[in-house]
């Protein structure tokens, strides 16, 4: 597949064409105010680090109505839930970072798993064209390459944009839909493979030497689980759940009903495995009673359980949010190294 070029002088036209018939979402605002917001084609910014929250909010908002019922007893469907989810809007999101796109593809396999399809996620997911922007310069907390990704990765993206010298945008398709869309946009095509590859190599190198986390993949699940390091790994954890709220692959939720005089709704809200309430049984028994088990659950889930279920793909994409946001500096890279050691044959 050839690459395409969107000229610097015609970027507004490019975004206009890209967003024809769709709303355009791009990262707006700086620092911790950076978030995906609806954008006019001439207002797209290319110089941000990444959005503060992960883009999972696009398909999986913090609170989402699933269904509703009314209490009007004169009607036959009183007190019966019917679907009342919000209609998905055709959307193109520009500026996803490859780590986040990869995270969305991991979450997608959970929401559309081997047995069930989540219609609320799928509705929005299917209506969205994902366009990434490659990371030429990694942020200090970035480690996507160490987790098996790339700052120029295409996974989970329809199109990846990368900046060319002089201000033009190079465009590479990541999916058939992306390829079709690029063709439709009637852009100048070019062979940018060499530029792409050298930019990618430089960007990966800028992240430093990547630690090798493969011993975790090879290790026995129970050996990882039973290792004594979890006690000290979890000791300073506050169990706040910030890591889970910011993580692009964390997808856990709680289902809650609320009602008033007229009717009620069933909704889902983000939940976190760091919470005591998350697993407690009606009897009071809790399979994960202390923070040690809960911290272990989070890291085992990211680095062992998800890879086991998703053909080796890790549940951490190295976006670095949890590292940057953790109030007590529990660094998944350090935890992963401990897991590598615990899985060493001498200790297994």
């Amino acid at each position, binding site marked *: 597949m050839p690459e395409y070029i969107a000229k610097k002088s015609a970027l507004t036209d490019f975004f206009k064409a890209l967003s024809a018939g769709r709303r355009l979402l791009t990262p707006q605002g700086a620092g911790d105010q950076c978030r995906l917001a609806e954008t006019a084609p001439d207002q797209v910014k290319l110089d941000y680090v990444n959005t503060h929250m992960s883009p999972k909010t696009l398909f999986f908002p913090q609170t989402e*109505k699933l269904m*509703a*019922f*009314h209490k*009007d007893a004169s*009607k036959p469907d009183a007190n019966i839930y*019917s679907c*009342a989810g*919000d209609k998905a809007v055709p959307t193109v999101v520009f500026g996803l970072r490859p780590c986040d796109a990869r995270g969305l593809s991991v979450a997608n396999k959970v929401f559309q798993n081997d047995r069930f399809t989540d219609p609320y996620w799928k509705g929005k997911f299917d209506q969205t064209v994902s366009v990434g922007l490659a990371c030429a310069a990694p942020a200090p907390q970035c480690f996507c390459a160490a987790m098996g990704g790339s700052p120029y990765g295409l996974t989970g993206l329809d199109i990846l944009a990368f900046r060319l010298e002089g201000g033009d945008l190079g465009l590479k398709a990541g999916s058939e839909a992306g390829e079709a869309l690029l063709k439709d946009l009637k852009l100048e095509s070019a062979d940018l493979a060499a530029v792409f590859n050298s930019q990618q190599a430089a960007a990966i190198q800028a992240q430093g030497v990547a630690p090798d986390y493969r011993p975790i993949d090879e290790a026995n699940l129970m050996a990882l689980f039973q290792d004594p390091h979890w006690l000290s790994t979890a000791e300073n954890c506050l169990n706040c759940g910030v890591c889970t709220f910011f993580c692009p692959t964390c997808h856990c939720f709680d289902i809650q009903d*609320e*009602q*008033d005089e*007229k*009717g*009620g*709704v069933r909704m889902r809200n983000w939940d976190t495995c760091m919470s005591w309430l998350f697993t407690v049984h009606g009897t009071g028994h809790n399979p994960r009673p202390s923070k040690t088990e809960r911290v272990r659950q989070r890291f085992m889930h990211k680095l062992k359980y998800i890879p086991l279920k998703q053909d080796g793909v890790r549940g951490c994409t190295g976006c670095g949010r949890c590292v940057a946001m953790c109030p007590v500096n529990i660094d998944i890279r350090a935890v992963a190294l401990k897991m590598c050691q615990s899985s060493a044959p001498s200790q297994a």
Partner: protein
Amino acid sequence: MSDFEPKIVAFFCNWCTYGAADLAGVSRLEYPPNFRVVRLPCTGRLNPKFIMEAFKRGADGVWVSGCHPGDCHYIAGNYHARRKFILLHQLLESIGVEPDRLRFSWISSAEANKFQAIARDVVEHVKACGPNLAFRKEELKLGLAEVA
């Protein structure tokens, strides 16, 4: 707003104000019917989250009433409650709850007339505030076309 009839949640101590309400009724002292009374063993039992729950669910006003200081059935329950009320009152006023929406009083079981007077006063003041639209949960958006 003249036809606005406020809903007021009243938390009454079992040993005094609750009796005063009873006495007012028996004595045929008329007072407005806008209250939903929650009987407490003592105002010391009143957790601030009860008051928040009332407002959250749309109460237009909350009225808390217990025994006069020194008269607590449990000796000091209302003294402890008073300190809580001082903080709660200050906090809610500071964050923008109209002071007239939240009323505290001491009414003994003999003070039926005081009960009547304060009940009327509470309703009058809450009426003047109008319906509680801001300090409550948002109405559920059912999104069902057939529900008006």
